[in-house]
C-alpha cells in the first residue's frame, strides 16, 4: 500500500478512531516506510503543541454588567417593567438573543435599528436600576409615597414618549414638505418645456400660412 493510501488510516490512528483494522494497516505500512513513521510521530508532537492554545479567560461568561437583579416585590417589579416596556415600545425593532446571568431572552425586529435600540435599552436599564435603588430606599410601610413614586415614574416615561413622538412627526413633516417642493419644481419645469414646444409649433404654422397666402396672392 502506498503512502497516500494509508493517510486516512493514519489520521484515524492519530485521533484514536478507525479501530483495530486501521491500526494494523498503519503498523504494517510503517514497518516498511520510515517516512510515514516519522510523519506520524511529528503529527503526534504537533498535537502536543496545538494543545497549548488556550481560550481567553472569561469567554462564555456573561458580560460583567449583566448581573441578576435583586428580586423586587411583585408590585414594584411590575411598575418597573411598565416603565421599561412603555419606553422600549417607542422603537422596538432589531433582533437579538441574549443569554446572561438573568437567563435567556429574544428580541425581534429590523436589524438596521439594532444599535439605536441597544442604546435605548442601555439607557432604560440604567433608569430602571436607578429607580429600583430609589424604591429600595423607601420604607415598605410608606405605601402613599411608593404609589406617588410609581405614578411619577410612569408620568416621566409618558412624557419622554410624547417628546420622542413629536420629534418623529417634525422630521416626517419636514421630509414631506421637501418632497412636495421638489415635485412642484419638476412639474413647473415640465410645463415650461411644453409651453416652449407649443410656441415654436405655432410660430412655424404662422410662417407656413404666411407663405401659402403669399403664394396664392402671386397667382
Amino acid at each position: 500500500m502506498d503512502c497516500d493510501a494509508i493517510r486516512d488510516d493514519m489520521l484515524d490512528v492519530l485521533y484514536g478512531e478507525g479501530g483495530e483494522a486501521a491500526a494494523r494497516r498503519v503498523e504494517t505500512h510503517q514497518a516498511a516506510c520510515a517516512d510515514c513513521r516519522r510523519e506520524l510521530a511529528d503529527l503526534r508532537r504537533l498535537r502536543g503543541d496545538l494543545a497549548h492554545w488556550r481560550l481567553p479567560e472569561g469567554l462564555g461568561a456573561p458580560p460583567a454588567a449583566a448581573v441578576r437583579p435583586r428580586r423586587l416585590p411583585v408590585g414594584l417589579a411590575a411598575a418597573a417593567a411598565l416603565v421599561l416596556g412603555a419606553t422600549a415600545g417607542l422603537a422596538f425593532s432589531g433582533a437579538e438573543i441574549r443569554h446572561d446571568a438573568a437567563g435567556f431572552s429574544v428580541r425581534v425586529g429590523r436589524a438596521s435599528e439594532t444599535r439605536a435600540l441597544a442604546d435605548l435599552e442601555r439607557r432604560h436599564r440604567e433608569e430602571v436600576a436607578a429607580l429600583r435603588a430609589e424604591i429600595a430606599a423607601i420604607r415598605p410601610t410608606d405605601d402613599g409615597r411608593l404609589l406617588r413614586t410609581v405614578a411619577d415614574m410612569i408620568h416621566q416615561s409618558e412624557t419622554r414618549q410624547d417628546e420622542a413622538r413629536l420629534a418623529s412627526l417634525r422630521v416626517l413633516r419636514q421630509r414631506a414638505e421637501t418632497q412636495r417642493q421638489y415635485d412642484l419644481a419638476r412639474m413647473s419645469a415640465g410645463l415650461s418645456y411644453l409651453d416652449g414646444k407649443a410656441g415654436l409649433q405655432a410660430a412655424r404654422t404662422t410662417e407656413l400660412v404666411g407663405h401659402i397666402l403669399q403664394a396664392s396672392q402671386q397667382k
Partner: protein
Amino acid sequence: MTPTDEDLVVAFQSGDIPAFDQLVRRWDRKIQGVIYRIVGNHDEARDLSQEAFLKAYRALGTFKQEARFSSWLYQIAINATRDRLRRRRRRTDLSLDDVEERADNALRDAGPSALDLIESHDLSRVVAAAMAALPEEQREVVILKEYEGLTFPEIAETLDVPLSTVKTRLYRGLGQLRVRLERQGIHGGAAVPVPSA
C-alpha cells in the same frame, strides 16, 4: 438524571420554552470557543454566538432529530461565522497573501519572540497566529477535531461534506501548521535552534 440534548429539544418542541435556556447554558461556552478560535476576537465571538443561538431558537421548532443537535448547532455557528468573515473580506478585500502576512505581523507584534514565549511556557499565541494563517476550510476542520473533539463523521455532518474531504482538509491543515510552527522554532513542544540568517 440530567436530560440529554435530544430530551431538551423534544421538551422545547412540546412548548417548554425554558428548555432552550438549558441548551444555551450547556452549549454557550463551547460555541463561543469555536467561533473565537475561527475569528480570533472575543467580542465578535460573543456577538456571533448570540446570532447563532437566535437562529437556532427560530429553527428549533422544525428541527428533525435526524442529525445530532450538537452537529446542527455547530453548523449554524460556523455558517454565521463564515457569513461574517465573508462580509469582512468584502470590506477589506484581503488576498490570501495579505492574510498570511497579517498573521505573521500579528506574531511579530505579539510582544515577546516565539522563543521567549516557549521559554515562558506560553505557546498559546504562537499557535493562535499559525492557526489564523490557515485557509478557513482547513482551520474549521482542525478546530472541530483538535479542540472540540468531534469524530470524523460528526465533522462531516457538521460541515456537510464527505468524510474524505474532512480528512484531506485536516491533513493539509496539520501539515501547514507543522511548517509554520517549525518556522517559529517550535518542534514537538520544544524550541528548535533557528539557524541565523
